[in-house]
């Protein structure tokens, strides 16, 4: 392979790398994709919700053979304190549509399927191969990579870094820095197996309908983070994650947090009797717009989590990964067709295209929100206040309603004071705009 030259080398076989390699290969380019895992997906962890639109734009008929678990008909948002949750649930028969918008998936089988499609499209995929460094020419242009296989250089016109949040290659080459502890979350997750009838009965589901729960509150012990519970066909994915800087400043362990979340009186019955078959952990880039590194240069592009493309507020990541992978491929294809070299100047078109897409528009909209979320009251005081308010409101005990209203208002002001409340509300509002 040493003297073979490729049109493109893609580092990584996650959703961003697969989207890029697939798009390039279907249009006839000679693509080499390198993946360090034994099989695509063996190193990857996700919730996971698949947003159909991003994949549909790449593989329109994916529903015919992709390993999908359940299409989501109900979304629950829970604000939790130690004993209760106060929630919003949205369920609609409209989500039982021909082409559902969101599905739960399990990453290992999904990545394997996506990778098979990439290989069918004509790309060469080498697993069990870790890329160790970029190779540059005398003008500092990236012209290939070295791997831990035999250390020989493999050459290509362009190298696409789809290596994920903790990727070493881009950081070692000085293209971007290692993420800072306050811009990445650590999430831990377990897979709980149950008979499908049990899952359907517990969550009020029929057939392949699914429910997802996102939750925040005292479950993260004052740290900025959230918990989630997703229904698959025959198992439940449950996890919790917090900013790494918050973890280091506390004395909590990630697995202790997950255990306490599982023991919460509202969660425990949903998991009762299940068999745990895997424990996993992964980082999530949560720095948003301001943490996005330089995305292109002479002979290289960055896609997916390696470029910090995660919308933490809406819990979207894989769709941004697939979209940036596709847009990177379209940029490369466009340059190839015009016989234009893969220089930084020409590849700047990638950034322009991203700016015009929902990816950058959404991340830009929330560029100040990560700061607003560094407010520990959101994860301690407010869930407690809300729970107490709900309880005061719903308990029928001979106290008149007006007095109850006053009591609720007073509890908010007593705890956070007017200035604190206003600050919190304004901080959130400013971040949201």
């Amino acid at each position, binding site marked *: 392979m040493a003297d073979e030259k490729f049109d493109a080398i893609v580092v990584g076989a996650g959703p961003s790398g697969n989207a890029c390699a697939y798009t390039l290969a279907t249009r006839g380019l000679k693509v080499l994709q390198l993946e360090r895992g034994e099989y695509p997906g063996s190193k990857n962890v996700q919730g996971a919700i698949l947003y159909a639109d991003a994949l549909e734009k790449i593989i329109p008929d994916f529903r015919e053979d992709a390993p999908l678990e359940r299409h989501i008909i109900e979304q629950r948002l829970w604000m939790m304190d130690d004993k209760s949750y106060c929630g919003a649930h949205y369920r609609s028969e409209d989500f039982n549509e021909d082409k559902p918008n969101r599905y739960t998936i399990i990453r290992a089988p999904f990545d394997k399927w996506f990778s098979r499609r990439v290989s069918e499209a004509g790309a060469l995929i080498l697993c069990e191969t870790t890329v160790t460094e970029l190779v540059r020419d005398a003008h500092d242009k990236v012209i290939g990579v070295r791997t831990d296989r035999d250390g020989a250089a493999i050459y290509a016109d362009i190298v696409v870094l789809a290596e994920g949040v903790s990727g070493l290659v881009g950081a070692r080459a000085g293209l971007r820095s290692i993420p800072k502890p306050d811009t990445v979350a650590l999430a831990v997750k377990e897979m709980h197996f149950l008979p499908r009838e049990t899952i359907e009965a517990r969550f009020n589901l029929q057939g392949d309908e699914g429910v997802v729960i996102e939750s925040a509150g005292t479950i993260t012990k004052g740290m900025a983070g959230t918990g989630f519970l997703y229904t698959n066909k025959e198992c439940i994915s449950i996890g919790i994650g917090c900013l790494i800087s918050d973890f280091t400043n506390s004395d909590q362990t990630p697995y202790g947090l997950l255990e306490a979340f599982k023991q919460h009186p509202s969660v425990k019955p949903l998991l009762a009797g299940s068999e745990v078959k895997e*424990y996993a952990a992964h980082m999530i880039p949560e720095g948003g717009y301001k943490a996005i590194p330089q995305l292109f240069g002479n002979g290289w592009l960055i896609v997916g989590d390696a470029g910090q493309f995660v919308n933490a507020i809406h819990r979207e990541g894989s769709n941004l990964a697939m979209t940036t992978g596709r847009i990177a491929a379209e940029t490369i294809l466009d340059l190839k067709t015009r016989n234009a070299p893969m220089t930084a100047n020409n590849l700047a078109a990638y950034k322009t295209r991203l700016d015009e897409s929902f990816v950058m528009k959404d991340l830009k909209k929330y560029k100040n929100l990560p700061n607003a979320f560094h407010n520990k009251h959101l994860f301690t005081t407010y869930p407690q206040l809300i729970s107490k308010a709900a309880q005061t409101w719903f308990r029928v005990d001979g106290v008149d309603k007006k007095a109850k209203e006053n009591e609720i208002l007073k509890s908010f002001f007593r705890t956070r004071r007017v200035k604190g409340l206003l600050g919190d509300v304004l901080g959130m509002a400013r971040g949201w705009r």
Partner: protein
Amino acid sequence: MSTETETNVRVEDKLFQNRYLVDAGRPHITVTPHTVPSPRLLALTHVCPAGCYTQADSGQVEISTDGCVECGTCRVVAEPYGEITWNYPRGGFGVLFKFG
């Protein structure tokens, strides 16, 4: 109550569920020799989701990478300070998620 379970949880029992291909004798992460551990190294003893870091009786922080789930957290916390060296295991080795 929850607090009891929390303190009793053994991460080893969780890791037991996972599949690994251990690259014997080639740890992919090492702790830089030190006499007194920094607060960051000490934090790793509770932050690592696989409990790979422990504090020895002598006070130094040590690592055993066998259960590592390759999340990269310790790298984010300590590598920029030269307190650990961090690499991926060789291609194919390490944790093998069946579900992920």
